[in-house]
């Protein structure tokens, strides 16, 4: 249904905007008067930076531009090396979750691909240049990503790509450089549990070792030797068993991480632990085993202190309406204390999760991040939450740049602002961890991507924020047609659930709970699957009584005006 709506929009929009890329008259960029943060921990200085043909060619406090450069004013802005997403699914379409039990002859012996074991799979066959996630990540300051296929136990091999380019070959930096592994299984076939996954690893690994060894002998002298006949999955593990390819093992929680370390210890592969969320208690073992760690940027939801009562109702037991809860409760004090105690434990746990980066840094464990679970728009807010728990800017920056580059083995070409490195940089309105920092510009391979930065509307304290619950009609001003429909807001705690319908496609709807409210301003977005790619529809609207107006941007297709009014205004 989502698909139908968005296709209608796309038809309308692309009719107007097809292929209207403005030709770029120069491949030289000169950003001047920008505060340059060349390395994590380096002293920032105001200066200029020159990027030519996708390479940083000069940087310094007083360098001058060549005559044919595009000169960009970086005054009051802060420049950093383009960020590197160490592990992600960027540029790959998420397949539909299929939780059906596959039909196989024997559940104990399913074909590898049915069992989620496809280490031979390559991103080169899955990459989509127009995938919405590429733009989304670029907008958060990312220029390079290691991206891996979706899947279960062994989804496939990762590649390092530039977040720019018209095709995989255009974007690729390192092809098939890593192996991606997970504690995930297909339902009802071996391995159906984590103990099955452990067994499968042990068995496949041993066979890959044996066969790789035999293959080497055969290569040296095939006479009088049986021809090795490995299956695709086993053969794909050869570079892993010979330690030429690291395994990026997704292991969020404490026990998963221990199990991953156990496998690594038993089998001996090069290990990068990814998506870690609860790892501080294992710091010693991490150091001892000398493995790399990628922390998840997906943090537990923030508990809102001031909303104590409503929060408690949400967190605590459901109270039956009209029965318990309304009555005077003489034991309220006792249960309150108990709830407070439990809430405190939960908050402590949440705090510990947010403090993971700081705690690892304190242990001198090098760290970068992984980007499997996190939503792109949460990256910067979550970094700031980590900073509040003590994460320093230099560690945060190194995790986004130099450590990420080192993990991927591209530190010689990316991760810092230095002459000779790839022309990837991000320009922020404020220093990296500043609450007000916004991404103004991202340069990838020397190509400039600029973003409108709106000043945050001042919220007058004490301002009564109107309840916008109810049905609103909207119109979008797309040249040549006017998509319209309704938006229905339903109050949910201190935010809303939203359901959007389109008159162009009656009977279908999209809903989202992902709404940011700031006074009378509201921003929300939802992703849509449209003919093979994910498109993000971003709305930024301001309410004024019974009307609203604002902009809506649709993927790569541009921004349009949107207006709306309350369908059935009371009074």
């Amino acid at each position, binding site marked *: 249904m989502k698909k139908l709506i968005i296709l209608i929009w796309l038809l309308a929009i692309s009719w107007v905007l097809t292929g209207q890329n403005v030709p770029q008259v120069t491949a030289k960029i000169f950003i001047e008067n920008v505060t340059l943060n060349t390395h994590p921990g380096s002293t920032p200085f105001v200066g200029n930076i020159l990027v030519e043909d996708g390479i940083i060619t000069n940087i310094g406090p007083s360098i001058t531009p060549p005559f044919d450069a595009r000169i960009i004013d970086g005054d009051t802005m802060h420049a950093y090396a383009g960020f590197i997403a160490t592990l992600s699914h960027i540029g790959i379409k998420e397949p539909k979750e299929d939780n059906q039990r596959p039909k196989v002859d024997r559940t104990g012996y399913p074909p590898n691909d049915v069992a989620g074991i496809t280490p031979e799979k390559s991103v080169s066959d899955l990459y989509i240049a127009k995938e919405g996630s590429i733009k989304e990540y670029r907008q958060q300051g990312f220029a390079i990503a290691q991206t891996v296929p979706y899947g279960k136990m062994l989804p496939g091999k990762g590649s390092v790509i530039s977040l720019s380019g018209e095709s995989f070959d255009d974007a690729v930096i390192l092809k098939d450089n890593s192996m991606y592994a997970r504690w995930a299984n297909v339902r009802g076939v071996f391995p159906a549990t984590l103990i099955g996954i452990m067994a499968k690893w042990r068995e496949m690994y041993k066979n890959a070792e044996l066969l790789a060894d035999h293959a080497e002998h055969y290569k040296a002298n095939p006479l009088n030797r049986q021809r090795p006949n490995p299956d695709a999955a086993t053969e794909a593990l050869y570079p892993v068993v010979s330690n030429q390819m690291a395994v990026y093992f997704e292991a969020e929680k404490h026990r998963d991480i221990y199990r991953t370390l156990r496998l690594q210890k038993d089998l001996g592969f090069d290990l990068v632990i990814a998506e870690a969320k609860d790892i501080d208690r294992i710091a010693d073992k991490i150091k001892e085993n000398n493995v790399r760690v990628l922390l998840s940027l997906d943090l537990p939801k923030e508990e809102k202190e001031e909303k104590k009562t409503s929060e408690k109702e949400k967190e605590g*037991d*459901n*109270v*039956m*309406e009209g*029965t*318990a*809860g309304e*009555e005077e409760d*003489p*034991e309220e004090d006792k*249960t309150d204390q108990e709830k407070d105690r*439990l809430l405190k*434990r939960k908050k402590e746990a949440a705090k510990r999760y947010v403090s993971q980066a700081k705690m690892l840094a304190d242990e001198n464990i090098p760290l970068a991040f992984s980007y499997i679970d996190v939503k792109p728009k949460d990256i910067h807010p979550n970094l700031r939450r980590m900073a509040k728990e003590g994460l320093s800017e230099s560690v945060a920056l190194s995790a986004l740049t130099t450590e990420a580059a080192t993990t991927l083995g591209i530190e010689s070409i990316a991760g810092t602002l230095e002459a000779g490195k790839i022309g990837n940089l991000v320009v922020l309105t404020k220093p990296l961890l500043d609450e007000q920092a916004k991404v103004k510009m991202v340069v990838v391979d020397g190509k400039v991507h600029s973003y409108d930065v709106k000043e945050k509307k001042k919220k007058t304290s004490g301002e009564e924020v109107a309840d916008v619950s109810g049905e609103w009609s909207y119109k979008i001003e797309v040249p040549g047609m006017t998509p319209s429909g309704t938006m229905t807001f339903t109050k949910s705690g201190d935010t809303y659930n939203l359901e959007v319908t389109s008159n162009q496609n009656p009977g279908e709807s999209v809903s989202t709970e992902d709404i940011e409210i700031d006074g009378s301003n509201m921003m929300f977005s939802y992703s849509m699957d449209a003919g093979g790619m994910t498109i993000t529809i971003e709305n930024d609207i301001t309410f004024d009584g019974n009307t609203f107006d604002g902009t809506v941007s649709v993927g790569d297709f541009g921004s349009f005006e949107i207006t709306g009014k309350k369908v059935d205004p009371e009074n």
Partner: protein
Amino acid sequence: MMIKYIYIFSLLLIANSIAGQQVTKSTYGDVLLKNATVHTVTDGTLNNTDVFIKDGLIADIGNNLSAGRNVTTVDCSGKHIYPGFIDSDTRLALSEVSAVSLTNDFNEIGDLIPHMQALTAVNPNATAIPVTRVNGVTSVIVAPTGGIFPGTASLIDLIGYTPEQMDAGFRGVIMNFPSSARRGRRDSRSDEDIKKAQDKATKKIDEVWDELALYHKIDSAATGNSKAHIKYQPEMDALLPVYRGEFPLMINVSKDKDIEAAINWVTKKGVKAIFIGVSEGYRVADKIAEAGIPVIAGPVLSVPGRAEARYDVAYANPGIMAKAGVKVAIRTGDSENVRNLPFNAGFAATYGMGKEEALKAITINPAEMFGVADKYGSISKGKVANLFVSTGDPFEMKTRLTHLFIKGWNVPIESRHTLLYNEFLKRSPGLED
């Protein structure tokens, strides 16, 4: 003549030793139990006291009672007499082998089926009956399970050849109060889904009650011939005695908030209720006491329902409620292992309830809850002779029952378990083929 007797006798022996399934017949007659320590429950403990069983009743209690003609005298010196235990919620005799679904007769299809009668499905020959009673359990509630109103429960004595013979008179309609609890660690329903299901069930219960009120009005107004014109309404017919306060509504409810909601509902509707399960009663004990609703707690041998709860809350729960002033009975909720009732009571006793209260919770308290205290629940003159003689404290593991009487029947201390023991302790043939 003699030969014939020997022949029959040997046949009986063979039947017992080889088949090992059928227990010996109970016998009926007047019995005088001499010189026992009598734990009456309601009138204290009497030393060196005789109990006279006649015509199925406790005919007399006293010192030096004399046996008349045809009275069997049993010397109980050094032994103890207790009233038979009552398990207030079981599936005994409604299920033979729980994993074999066709032997299960306690869970009928439908949400609103209060007219399903547990007594109908009681199998008087269930193997578990002798197994249960040899631990001193002489009466049990048999109750259906399932939807909102899964049926009507009955109190039965554990002796008889037909359900009617076993029927001890009490009826109660079972209700499962809408629950907001999770059904297991892998119950992956969202909070909203649980709430929705709970609200839906609550609405249904209220609808039923409104309709029931109307039915009561119509039924009360109808006289003579007009009664015949009332539509066939088995559900409402089954609920009517509850509405009129003739039967209690036996409400399964576990979680603290659900218990509070159930108290409010019961109070609002003015229903005579008994709560069953009530595993979080310890969290709202004062409220239950204040509402004056009796509770059938258990199984005592359970794990806490919350990960953060103290490890022994299930053991301590009956005691906490009793101390708060709630009338507490104890159930096993079991089918084949109802025999563990005294041990459930024993754990409750150990974890705060005390022996005396725990004993009441499986004797006089349930008898009072079910309105049969004139006949059951204590060693009192005139009551039904449901009692046993033991070598000591019946909660203690080493204690043995030596005699068991149900409705005056002298029941052998035998079950499949003892028969198999006798046959296989020293197997013959042994190893040699």
